C-alpha cells in the first residue's frame, strides 16, 4: 500500500503544482485586461507587446483560438458566469454582430480616421482579409471570378466554418457556387485547406485568403495568387469592448491603440492588412480592386443563404 499511497501523494503534489502554476498575475487585476481573438499569433503577439511597451505596468492576457473555438468559448462563458473577455477582436463582422445582438459587447468606439464602411456604433474594423484566387502553376489564373470554374478542379472553403467564405458566398450568390459544383468543385474546411490542397496539387485552383496564398507562394509552393475582377472580396476584422468589463478604461485604451496610427502600423508590419488609409500592409498588387458584401443585409439573411448553399455542397 505504501507504493500506492506514494503514487497518490505524487498525483496530489502534481495537481497542486499544476494548479498553482497557472495563477500568475504579473500585473494587478486593475491593470490587466483579457483579449479574446481569432487573429493569429504572428499579428497579435507583437501588437500586444507594443501596447504593453507604450502602457507600462499594464498586461493583456490572451485567449487565441480559431473562430469556432472562440465562439464556443464565448457561448460557454455566457452560460457559466458571464463573458470573461474585456475586449474581443473578431475575424469578421457577422460574428461580432452576433455578440452585439446578445448584448455582450459594443456601445463604444474610439475617434479615428478608419473609414465608415468598416464601422458601426458598436465595433470598428482594424484589419482586413481579402478573398482571392489561388491557382496551381501551369493552370490559367482567372481574370474574372466567373472564370474560376473553368480552371480545373476547384476547392472552396466552407462558409459555415470560415466567415471569409461566408462573406464570399454573400457577395457571389448561390448561382456562382452551383456553377462551380456542376464543374466538379469540392468544398473543404478552411481557406488554409484550400491553399495547402492547391499547393500540393490535390486541386488546380481555389478561393482562399490573401495572407495564406501569399505565404505559400513566398515559401516556394508552385502557386499563383490573383485578384480576379471585379475584385477580391474584403472582410473586415472588428474589435469591440465588453459591456461588462471591470476595467473599461484600459480596455478602451487598448482599442484606441489598435485604431491609432501606431497600432495600425504594427498590424500592417506583422502580417495583416490594416484598415487606416495610408498605412502600409502586406503584399497587394497595384490597382487591386476590392468588393464588399452588404454586411447589414447578410446579418439578417445568412440563415436562408446557408440553407440554399447546403443544397449545393451538401449538409
Amino acid at each position, binding site marked *: *500500500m505504501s507504493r500506492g499511497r506514494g503514487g497518490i501523494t505524487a498525483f496530489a503534489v502534481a495537481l497542486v503544482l499544476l494548479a498553482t502554476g497557472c495563477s500568475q498575475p504579473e500585473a494587478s487585476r486593475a491593470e490587466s485586461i483579457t483579449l479574446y481573438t481569432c487573429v493569429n499569433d504572428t499579428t497579435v503577439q507583437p501588437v500586444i507587446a507594443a501596447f504593453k511597451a507604450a502602457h507600462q505596468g499594464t498586461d493583456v492576457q490572451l485567449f487565441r483560438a480559431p473562430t469556432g473555438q472562440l465562439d464556443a468559448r464565448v457561448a460557454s*462563458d455566457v452560460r457559466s458566469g458571464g463573458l470573461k473577455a474585456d475586449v474581443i477582436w473578431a475575424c469578421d463582422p457577422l460574428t461580432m454582430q452576433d455578440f452585439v445582438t446578445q448584448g455582450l459587447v459594443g456601445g463604444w468606439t474610439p475617434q479615428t480616421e478608419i473609414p465608415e464602411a468598416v464601422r458601426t456604433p458598436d465595433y470598428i474594423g482594424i484589419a482586413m482579409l481579402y478573398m482571392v484566387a489561388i491557382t496551381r502553376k501551369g493552370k490559367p489564373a482567372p481574370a474574372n471570378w466567373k472564370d474560376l470554374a473553368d480552371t480545373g478542379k476547384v476547392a472552396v472553403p466552407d462558409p459555415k466554418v470560415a466567415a471569409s467564405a461566408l462573406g464570399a458566398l454573400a457577395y457571389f450568390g448561390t448561382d456562382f457556387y452551383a456553377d462551380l459544383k456542376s464543374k466538379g468543385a469540392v468544398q473543404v474546411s478552411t481557406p488554409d485547406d484550400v491553399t495547402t490542397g492547391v499547393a500540393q496539387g490535390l486541386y488546380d485552383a481555389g478561393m482562399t485568403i490573401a495572407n495564406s496564398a501569399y505565404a505559400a507562394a513566398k*515559401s516556394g509552393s508552385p502557386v499563383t495568387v490573383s485578384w480576379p475582377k471585379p475584385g477580391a472580396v474584403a472582410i473586415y476584422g472588428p474589435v469591440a469592448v465588453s459591456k461588462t468589463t471591470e476595467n473599461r478604461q484600459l480596455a478602451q485604451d487598448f482599442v484606441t491603440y489598435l485604431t491609432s496610427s501606431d497600432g495600425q502600423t504594427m498590424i500592417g508590419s506583422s502580417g495583416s492588412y490594416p484598415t487606416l488609409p495610408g498605412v502600409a500592409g502586406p503584399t497587394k498588387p497595384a490597382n487591386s480592386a476590392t468588393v464588399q458584401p452588404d454586411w447589414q443585409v447578410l446579418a439578417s439573411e445568412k440563415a436562408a443563404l446557408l440553407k440554399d448553399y447546403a443544397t449545393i455542397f451538401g449538409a
Partner: protein
Amino acid sequence: MVWASWSVLVASAAIVVIVPLIMLIRTSWVEGRARLAELLTEPGFRTAIVHSFELSAAATALAVPIGVAIALTLRDPRLPGRAFWRAAVLLPLLVPDFVLGYSWLRAYARGGLTSEIFGFVWSGVQGPVGVAVIVAVSAVPLVYLIITVGLVTRAEPITERAAHASGAAAITVLRTVTVPLLAPAIATSAVVIFVLTLGTFAVPQVIGTPAGFSTITTRIYSDLSYGSDPQTFVDATTLAVLLVIITLVVLGPADVLLGVRLQQRRTSTADLDWPSGTRLASTLKVLILASYLIATACLPLLALLSAAITRAVGIPSTPANWTWDNFAEVLTPRTGAALGRSIVLALTAASILLVLGLITAAVGRTRPGRWVSVLITLTLVLPGSTVAIGMLLGYGRWLADTVVIILLAYLAKLWTLAHRPISAAVDRVPPEGLRAARVSGATLTTGLGTVALPLLRVAMITAWALCFLTALHEVTMSSLLYGPGSETLAVVVLNSADLGRVGVTAALSVLVTAVVVLPAVALWALTRRARA
C-alpha cells in the same frame, strides 16, 4: 477498501462525467428543445447519423481482425525479429491525430510521396473509403494491445498444445480454443473501436468533408464554428447529447449483457508463447506484416517527415529543397513551455486514469460496476469540443483558464481507454488466490500486490501508455480550455495550422514524436542492459 474504491469511483464519475453531461443536456433541453423536431428531421442529420454508423462499423470490421491477426502472429517466439515487430506495430500511435489525415494525403494522394517516387496515386484516399481505412489502421495498435493483454492473461498454451497433439489443425485450434478464450478481449476491442470511431473527428473532417462525407462530429464542428449565433451553439450541444443517447442505446445493453456472458474464471499460466506453423510460414508472416507496416505507418510517417524538412508544400522533397527552417520556427521557448506543460498534464492524467481504470475494472464484475463502465464510455464518444464545453459549463466559473479544467477534460475523455484494457484482463485474477493469501496472513494490500498486480502488469502498462499518448496529442479540448499560463502544445499547433503552415505543423508533430520515442528507446535499452 471496497467502500473507499466505490467512493473514489462515484466521486470521480460525478465530477468528470455526470456534471458535464448534465450541463450539456440542460443547455440542450432548456434552450434547444423547441428546435429538436426540426433538427431531427433535417436530411443532413439523418445522413450524418448513417455515415457515422457506417464508418464505425467499417473501421471496427477492418481493425479488429487485423489487430487480432497481428497479436496472434507476434505470439510466436520463433518469429524472426519478434521484439522489433512488437514495437513496430505501435508506430501508427505515434502520428498525432492533428496531422493524421494530412500525412496520408501527403503519402498517397495526387502530388503526394508515392506519386513523386513511383507515379502511384490512390484516389480512394480522398473519400469515405480513405476515411475508413485511415481510422481503422490507426485503431489497429489499440486492438493489438488489448488482444495482447488478453493473450497474456488468458492464453492457455497447454490446452492449445493438447488440441494440436490430438490432431487438430492449426485453424481448428484457433477457432475452437484460442479465439473463444480471447472473446472478452475481442469484444472489448470491438466496443472501444466502435465508440472511438463514432467520436472521431480529425480524419472525417480533413478527408471526408471535401468528399461530401459528413458525420455527426463534423456537423457538431460545423455548428460550433458558426457558434456566435446562439442557436447553432445549442444545436451543437443537442447533437452531442443525441450522440450520447445513441451510444447509450446501442452500447448499454450490449455491454451489460455481454459483460456477464464473457466473464471467465480461469487460473493463470506463466507459459504464454505458442509456437505455431513452419519456418516458411513464419517468414511469410513477417513479409506480410512488414508490407502492412510500410504501407500504413512508414509511408505516412515518412510523408510527415518530408513535409517537415521541405521548404514549401507542393515541391519535390529533394535535398535541394530541404530546410531546417520549420524546426527553427518550432524550437522556441514558448513551444518548449507548452510542450513541457502538455507532457506534465499527460503524465498526470495517465497516472490518475490508471488508478481510476483499475478501480473501475475491479468493480466491473458487479451490475452497478458494469453500468459505471457504460457511463464512462459516454464521454469517449463525445467529440473533444463538446467535452470541453461540458467542462466549461460545469466548472468554468471557478476553474476557467487553469490546467485543472484541462486535466478534468482529459480524465473524462480517456477514462474508458484506461479501463477497457484492464477490464479485459481483470477477470483472470483468481479470487481464490486472493483468499488464500489473506488466510495465510497477508494483508489485503500484500494480497493485491502479490496476486493481482503481477497478472495485470501488462494491461496496466498498456492502459497508461495509451492514455499518455492520447493526452499528449490532444488538441481540441485544451485549445478551448486553456488560459494565460496554461497553454498546451495544442495552442501552438492550432496557431501554426491557422497560418496554413503545414511544414511547421509537421515539424511540431515530428518533435512531439521524438520527445516520446527517444526516452522510450533509451528506457528499453537500459532495461535490456539491466536484464542482461
